[in-house]
């Protein structure tokens, strides 16, 4: 059995010996280096660009928007983002001029010898300023996208509610902060074709972006992923920009061009998690039954649309959490501001929604004077229940299991009472959160993408996996091998992972949305099943039996009246006779899935994963510093293909979530980030995080590979509200805006 085992990482050896090659580890003799000159202002017109006479410009190559052959565009959802600014800039850090030079130092010097003057326009730097149209950034109203979800009649239900609770919550930006910054090498061939190598999540996104910029065909663009040092969504769409820039430079200077961002530049220029203002109004019976929920969500999209509509859509769908409520109205908008575009970050709209939703549950429990556990149990979704979009949950609903597990393991019910009465100036507290996360793309997204993957039997009798799903640390290369080995009944050693190269692998869709294992893993499993069938067919022909009599298990092939054959040997012979055997599969939705894109009703996701977190803290009542002392999580992920790796995902995601709640804050002045460095944007270290208890719950999803469903994003969702609830339990300070800095704790205490 390969599935369900904690086998070690496919590329583990390379990663502990320093052999793994990340993009900055590559070089070639005639390679040049690219640098980017960016806007210094948040909104305005470029008046002049002055190239200093004291610099010898013949040594370098300069690129501006006029060098773009076909479309000055970062192709994504709306065609609003230029690859290089033309006359107007809409955010600090917007790229304007590119330089390539034979050395980094020379490229940097060239940049310093360019001076841009601007005419500044008024800038809208916050959600409020955007909505009041302080500056026109997108259309007439600055709204990129709006969604509404309606179920039942909230107006009537509020009439009959015994209690109405309102709350307003705010979350700011969060930076993905992968430790490897963005980087690519672009090479232009004599025939005009372009090769991009680099750090990325989604090779086919870059493939499309480059085709549009240069007007090239599918075959003329090749995108190859190098070992990627973390992404977390930050390398979903943004690498298209870096790749487009490097390709422009390479085309003009005739050399391969490497662009690797320095930390400060990466932080200042790349996408972040959307800030959000979320308001809840909830009507209940006196004993805590949800009757009506109204939620208003506004996301700050930044200056260009990027993926904002999709992020918003997920936020809206997850707005009321894993609870049933017969009457729902959710309004969501994403608005434009003169700040760098926000984009994908693990959780993708849900961490924002979850923070607001779960803090609001705490507020309701307090208002009603009941336990928040009781409130959650009373309203939680169970099998057969219906979500806010009208989706009936037919299977794989681990809500009760995850909640009960963390409550029990943490002794939550007695601790929460005990901590209410602090004994000294170190107050302890315990907090809970309960959440869900839809796996795969929203609505009909997976149907539109129809992700493909293949497996191929090669001349060594090995099975090679061909997919565009990338390994970015989460374990793709390992779990896909496990799935294929399991399906074929062969050893893991017989399964290898092919290069992530668009000229060799089919488009499996992007590596996002917790879809790699659940969706593409299933496609891989189907491709392997097809291969198994092909091999059986050939063997049946050979030994002259019926295909149903051929079995493959434990690396051996058995059929009646013949001695067992080795899989590898037989495979080698088959390939010798028939050539390489490749089988492909393509995603199709589980039966019965229906989604209405216009009314936003129906099956928003094929299935949800469920989680519950308990966090304990100690708050120093002199300094209001918070120490996290205990973390327990339970996650229903259907099936852990590789339990150790699943735990690793949960632990890592949880720490990002705790950072979001506790200390990660982007500081702005006039649209400029003031803390774009590790020294002043603080992420948790090993000392800030206690030992964690990670519990896996497996309620199999019948249409996932071996029952698996989404995992990657779930652990990002609930950490912040559990932490902030623990602070409330410890101190009585009810914080509605994260991170929970000492200043915010003090302010909340004073507001009491």
């Amino acid at each position: 059995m390969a599935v369900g085992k904690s086998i070690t990482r496919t590329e583990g050896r390379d990663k502990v010996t320093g052999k793994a090659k990340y993009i900055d580890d590559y070089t070639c003799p005639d390679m040049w280096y690219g640098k980017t000159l960016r806007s210094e202002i948040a909104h305005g017109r470029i008046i002049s660009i002055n190239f200093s006479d004291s610099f010898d410009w013949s040594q370098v190559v300069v690129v501006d928007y006029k060098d773009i052959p076909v479309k000055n565009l970062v192709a994504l959802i709306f065609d609003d983002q230029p690859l290089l600014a033309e006359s107007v800039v809409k955010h600090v850090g917007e790229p304007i001029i590119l330089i390539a030079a034979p050395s980094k130092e020379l490229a940097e010097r060239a940049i310093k010898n360019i001076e841009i003057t601007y005419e500044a326009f008024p800038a809208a730097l916050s959600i409020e300023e955007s909505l009041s149209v302080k500056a026109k950034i997108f259309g007439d109203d600055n709204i990129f996208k709006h969604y509404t979800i309606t179920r039942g009649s909230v107006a009537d239900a509020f009439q009959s509610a015994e209690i109405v609770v309102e709350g307003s919550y705010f979350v700011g930006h969060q930076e993905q902060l992968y430790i490897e910054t963005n980087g690519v090498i672009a090479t232009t061939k004599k025939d005009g074709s372009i090769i991009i190598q680099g750090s990325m999540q989604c090779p086919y996104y870059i493939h499309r972006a480059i085709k549009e910029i240069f007007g090239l065909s599918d075959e003329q663009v090749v995108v190859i992923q190098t070992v990627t040092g973390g992404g977390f969504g930050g390398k979903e769409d943004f690498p298209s920009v870096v790749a487009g820039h490097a390709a422009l430079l390479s085309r003009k200077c005739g050399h391969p061009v490497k662009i690797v961002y320095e930390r400060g530049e990466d932080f200042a220029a790349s996408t972040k998690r959307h800030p959000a203002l979320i308001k809840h109004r909830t009507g209940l019976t006196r004993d805590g039954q949800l009757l009506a929920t109204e939620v208003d969500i506004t996301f700050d999209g930044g200056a260009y649309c990027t993926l904002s509509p999709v992020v918003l859509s997920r936020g809206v769908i997850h707005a009321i959490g894993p609870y049933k409520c017969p009457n729902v109205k959710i309004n969501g908008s994403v608005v434009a501001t003169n700040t760098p575009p926000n984009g994908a970050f693990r959780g993708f709209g849900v961490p924002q929604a979850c923070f607001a939703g779960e803090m609001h549950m705490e507020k309701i429990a307090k208002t009603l004077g009941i336990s928040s556990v009781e409130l959650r149990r009373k309203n939680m979704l169970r099998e057969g229940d219906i979500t806010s979009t009208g989706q009936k949950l037919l299977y794989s609903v681990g809500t009760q299991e995850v909640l009960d597990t963390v409550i029990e393991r943490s002794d939550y019910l007695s601790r929460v009472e005990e901590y209410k009465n602090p004994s000294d100036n170190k107050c302890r507290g315990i907090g809970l959160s309960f959440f869900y996360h839809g796996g795969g793309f929203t609505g009909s997204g997976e149907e539109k993408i129809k992700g493909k993957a293949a497996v191929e039997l090669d001349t060594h009798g090995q099975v090679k996996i061909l997919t565009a799903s990338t390994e970015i640390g989460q374990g793709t290369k390992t779990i896909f091998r496990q799935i294929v080995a399991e399906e074929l009944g062969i050893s893991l050693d017989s399964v290898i992972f092919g290069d992530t190269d668009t000229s060799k692998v089919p488009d499996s869709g992007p590596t996002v949305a917790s879809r790699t294992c659940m969706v593409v893993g299933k496609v891989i499993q189907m491709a392997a099943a097809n291969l198994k069938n092909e091999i059986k067919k050939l063997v049946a022909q050979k030994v002259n039996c019926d295909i149903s009599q051929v079995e493959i298990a434990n690396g051996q092939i058995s059929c009646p009246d013949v001695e067992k054959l080795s899989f590898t040997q037989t495979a080698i012979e088959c390939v010798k006779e028939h050539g390489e055997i490749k089988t492909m599969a393509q995603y199709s939705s589980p039966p019965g899935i229906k989604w209405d894109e216009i009314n936003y009703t129906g099956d928003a996701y094929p299935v949800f994963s469920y989680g519950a977190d308990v966090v304990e803290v100690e708050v120093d009542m002199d300094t209001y510093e918070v120490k996290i002392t205990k973390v327990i999580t339970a996650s229903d992920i259907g099936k852990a293909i590789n339990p150790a790796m699943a735990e690793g995902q949960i632990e890592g995601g949880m720490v990002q979530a705790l950072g979001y709640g506790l200390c990660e804050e982007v500081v702005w002045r006039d649209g400029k980030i003031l803390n774009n460095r590790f020294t002043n944007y603080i992420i948790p270290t090993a000392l800030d995080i206690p030992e964690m208890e990670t519990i896996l719950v497996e309620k199999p999803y019948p249409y996932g590979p071996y029952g698996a469903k989404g995992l990657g994003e779930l652990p990002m969702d609930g950490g912040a509200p559990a932490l902030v609830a623990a602070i409330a339990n410890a101190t009585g300070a009810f914080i509605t805006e994260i991170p929970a800095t000492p200043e915010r704790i003090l302010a909340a205490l004073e507001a009491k």
Partner: protein
Amino acid sequence: MSVQLNINNKDYVVEVAPMKRLLDVLREDIGLTGTKEGCGEGECGACSVFIDGSVVNSCLVPVCQTNGSKITTVEGLSNNELSKLQQAFIDCNAAQCGICIPGMLIAAQALLDLNPNPSRGEIREAIAGNLCRCTGYMKIVDAIEIAATANKG
């Protein structure tokens, strides 16, 4: 200037600008790219190496200060066989994206050299200067603990 270095038990003489960062000399002039850059300002530990037995962030060290020094990078932690520490990192699935791991291994090796039997708290302290965004540190701490146990056995 000309700088003499002993890197992973091999002698090198390199002609470089004196203020060039040791990190860049290792990566560009020597071709040892295992040592990584995460921040370039001494905050993340991805560039950790041993200089004469102590752990240093190589992004902060001008190469001229290391003339005649003995340097160990991640490539020097093993010959053909992996060290116990490296093996434990593999066994525990301690690496995810892997970019922080070379620095982590150096920091962990330094700890085990000084304290062959560290507590989990001591391990956390020893790697507190090494940022990892992927793992949540649990499996890294596990691996170092197991390597320590293996050392004893």
